[in-house]
């Protein structure tokens, strides 16, 4: 199992503790304490996952998240001490796939990391259609009229989950379980933000979505093909 994890955190004690836990679970952690150096470290280590503290000296976590997301779809899990909606939503909108609020249990953290790493291991040849999009599940590509659309792995998974059962309305809780791998629904804001981000990439008009349709009071479903 691939297991390189880049820990971006300025608290050395916490970083060291994270290192102990991650190594104990079989991951290969590397560390950077400064927001300004985070991007360079990211390019250098090419991690499979980034653990990112939101409050950093130099560039803050949001900015780092945006920069990494600009050049890679690698899973990003935010560490945050603030569970206020605004902070969480801003973090998710800047490109993080998931977030975990301090203080967390080591098992919880490991479970989230595994859930984010797991998805890339099971490629099955499959061709799906949603709206006017064509999805190649094995080839990890989404195309509209031959034009490929770049999605992060998480957004891709979200789209695939919807496209596999176009007749079904997915509640946010179900999506959390299927896409993020949570057993018990934690926070449906994750779903809301990522659906918005997905829409901004795949919809012709994000104001009037046709691919990912909101079912008011219930959740989301795939638009008619």
């Amino acid at each position, binding site marked *: 199992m691939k297991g390189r994890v880049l820990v971006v955190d300025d*608290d050395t*004690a*916490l970083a060291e*503790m*994270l290192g*102990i*836990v991650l190594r*104990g679970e079989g991951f290969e952690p590397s560390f950077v304490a400064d927001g300004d150096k985070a991007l360079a470290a990211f390019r250098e280590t090419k991690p499979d996952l980034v653990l990112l503290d939101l*409050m950093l000296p130099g560039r803050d976590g949001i900015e780092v998240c945006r920069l990494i997301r600009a050049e890679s779809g690698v899973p990003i899990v935010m560490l945050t*001490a*603030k569970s*206020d*909606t*605004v902070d969480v939503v801003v973090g998710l909108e800047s490109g993080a796939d998931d977030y975990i609020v*301090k*203080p*967390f*249990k*080591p*098992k919880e953290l490991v479970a989230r990391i595994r859930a984010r790493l797991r998805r890339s291991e099971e490629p099955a040849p499959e061709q799906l259609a949603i709206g006017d999009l064509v999805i190649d599940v094995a080839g990890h590509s989404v195309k509209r009229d031959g034009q490929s659309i770049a999605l992060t792995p998480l957004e891709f998974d979200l789209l695939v989950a919807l496209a596999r059962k176009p007749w079904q309305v997915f*509640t946010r*809780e179900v999506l959390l379980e299927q896409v993020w791998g949570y057993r*018990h*629904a934690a*926070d*449906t*804001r994750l779903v809301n933000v990522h659906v918005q981000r997905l829409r901004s990439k795949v919809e012709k008009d994000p104001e009037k979505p046709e691919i990912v349709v909101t079912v*008011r*009071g219930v959740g989301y479903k795939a638009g008619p093909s």
Partner: protein
Amino acid sequence: MTRDSAASAPGSGARAGRPVGPEPSGRKPAGSRFGRVLESGLLHGGVQGSPVLRLFMRWVRRPLLPVMRLWRRNIQLRIVATTLLMSLGVVLLLGFVVIGQVRNGLLDAKVKAAQSQATGGFTAAKQKAEEAASTNGDDTTPADGRPSQNVIQWMSELVKSLSSGGQSAFDVVTLPMGGESGSGRGPRASGTVNWAASVPESLRERIDGDTAAAQSYTRIVYNSDQASQPGLVIGKQVNDPNGEPYQLYYLFPFTQEEKSLSLVRGTLATAGLFVVVLLGAIAWLVVRQVVTPVRMAASIVERLSAGRLQERMKVTGEDDIARLGEAFNKMAQNLQLKISQLEDLSRMQRRFVSDVSHELRTPLTTVRMAADVIHDARVDFDPVTARSAELLADQLDRFETLLADLLEISRFDAGAAALEAEPIDLREVVRRVVSGAEPLAERKGTRIRLSGDQQPVVAEADARRVERVLRNLVVNAVEHGEGRDVVVKLAAAGGAVAVAVRDYGVGLKPGEATRVFSRFWRADPARARTTGGTGLGLSIALEDARLHGGWLQAWGEPGGGSQFRLTLPRTADEPLRGSPIPLEPADSRRNHGLQDAGLGDTVRPHGTDKAVGVPAQAPPGQASTVSARGPITPRQATVAPTADPTALPGNGARVVPRPVSGAARRQDGGTASGAAANRPEEAGPEESSRQGEASRGR
């Protein structure tokens, strides 16, 4: 107040004292009742009583409403209208006085002129008669029939000659004495004067009986198509050449005077109109000078109160308005200062909470992880260290929850909590909460039952917060339920949805129902620590409910269990008026007491028809499961837990008659909550039966 309730109220004036049935003396007809209604309606501001009357008043008032509204709202219009009306009154009064005086003056002059004219005329007539008599006396004898012939002719000539001197300024009429018409001396009149209509009867009689001249005002009527006009008539007895008396009248029409008078009247009317209009315009201008700054101030105050604190009034000059403006600006500045200070304070507090949160959480995370690593490795330690590792991990859990709750509370206190409302089905939330509480319930040997979940219960709410509230309530119920069943009931009606969590545990002592929401409050300080919890759970739940504009209320009786009810408005901006679930459950001991006393029906007279809008809340089989706990719910089988009509929003629950035993105090959720909270000291025998019913939230 309706007529019915007014009539039943004792001592509400004459009407309440009126005997029912026929009037004792039959003196007062049916109309007196109407009159009384009318009187009471008109005198007491509102139209109460007869619906027909009310309808009529409304019909009359409706077209006037916009005008009345403008009248009430526009001070300028009011002042200008008042000025116009009052100056119109003054001008009219002035006009009448002036015209009266002018008319009197004109009449006096005319009368004097007329009298001297008439006196001259009478003298002339007398002279002519004497002349004629002296000439006639020589060559005629009075015995033959001719003299009368002569007199007739003489008289016609007399009238002609007398009237010719006036050039239609007057007319002359001669009449025989006493109305006799024989002997050929009939009446004569100059011009086309109709003598019969013009000379009043009363004047003729006076002239008959008296030789002096007499006058009277009259209307001069003409035989031709000339219009009649007012005039003065002066008459006197004069002798004809034969020495026989006849009546000679001078008629003076007021043609000229009428003309002068109408000229004066026209002039005055024009001037008065100008004065009134100009006064109105002046009033408008003057009022405008005052009203414009006031209106400006009003609009600025509105903007200020809407939050635009930098708005100021423009101050020019040093008059009263300018002073008002200066004072206002000073006030606005002070307000702005205070508000910005408070805002700074709030921002600082929020910032502080956020910083504390971060600063505490980061090291806590490290400690937590370290403790977990140690905890996982405890099998390798000696027993003392291993136990220490366990204690460390357990207490860290508690510390974490406490920190999280404290931060949550301080977020509420700082006003930093934001509601993320969207339509959710509360059944989903309840099912999640119940399945989350199952492990705990199994440990305690409790069954959690759901009722009222057949239909969707949808409301605009923050799922995260609602779930937190309900988790708190359910976990509390299980923990304090003594292993007995916990019932979670859902209902929706009107603009509200509600979830009630009922347990049959130790319940609440009187007065505790309000205190359970206090921070760090514990029912029994000696024993509560074992069950964990921070003591902040219900406070946070209450804040969550408040954030939704909802209620969180508690009811309990000692030994009879308790019920916590969360009521939320169906849409976020709608105020709550009631709850679909009664706060006191139908299977409470007191309700059973009422049932036993045979009062069950009076408690809930509309129970059957009002329950229609509420989902059925008594699943079959409930009776058997609950009645297993004999002492607590002895008569469960007979009580179908329908919605209490008094808990439904918007019905007239307040006038439903209640049995004496303190039940009248229990009204619908909203009002009862205020009443209960305001009268904590309500003592005596009632207190023991009312089981500390309480409510917080609004």
